């Protein structure tokens, strides 16, 4: 799966979690960029990504992530290793 497809799937996850089909995310999008990105929706995002990409994240994996770009890179590494 290439980076563009991964990012498209991540965008769909964001749209579903935040219930906004027009939401556009970028690599620099972070929790400051989306008003409803609270701790509960953060869990929802991570769980949705685990399911979408059939992988698991530890707390260490996700603690240091600064934005969507770093999340996409992490997923890319996981599924294309």
């Amino acid at each position: 799966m290439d980076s563009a497809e991964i990012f498209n799937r991540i965008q769909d996850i964001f749209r579903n979690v935040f219930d906004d089909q027009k939401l556009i995310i970028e690599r620099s999008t972070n929790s400051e960029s989306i008003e409803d990105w609270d701790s509960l929706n953060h869990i929802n995002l991570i769980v949705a990504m685990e399911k979408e990409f059939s992988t698991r994240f530890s707390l260490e994996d996700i603690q240091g992530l600064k934005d969507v770009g770093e999340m996409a890179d992490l997923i890319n590494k996981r599924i294309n290793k």
Partner: protein
Amino acid sequence: MNSYKYKEIKIGLSQSFDAVITQKMMDDFLSMSADTNPLHTDREYAKEHGYPSQVVYGMLTASFYSTLVGVYLPGKFALLTAIDVSFNKPVFVEDKIKVFGEVSYMNDAFRQIEIKAYIENQDNVKVSKAKIKVGLYE
């Protein structure tokens, strides 16, 4: 009350319990919610609209999902964070219901579990289904 800790839970762990819907529950729910819709409060009105008697509030039925999570699965250490519920068939006063839940997903990083749950009546008809997200603080 059960008190499953996160590390004691496995996917597939299930719990169930039985309950009977009483008129007092309906009266109490009316008092609490102020939902005066006649489908729930007026037997004759309900009959005129094709039901054998007044229909139990869906949210009263759904309140047993709270019991499922807070008392049975996982019990004491639960934090109910989300629930997606459907009401598939009507419930009536004096119905005997069975509430069933099974752990379908676990997230170790956040100690969160997901439970697939349903409620069926005395005729084994599923009257409600739910997907429930629960955090555990132990």
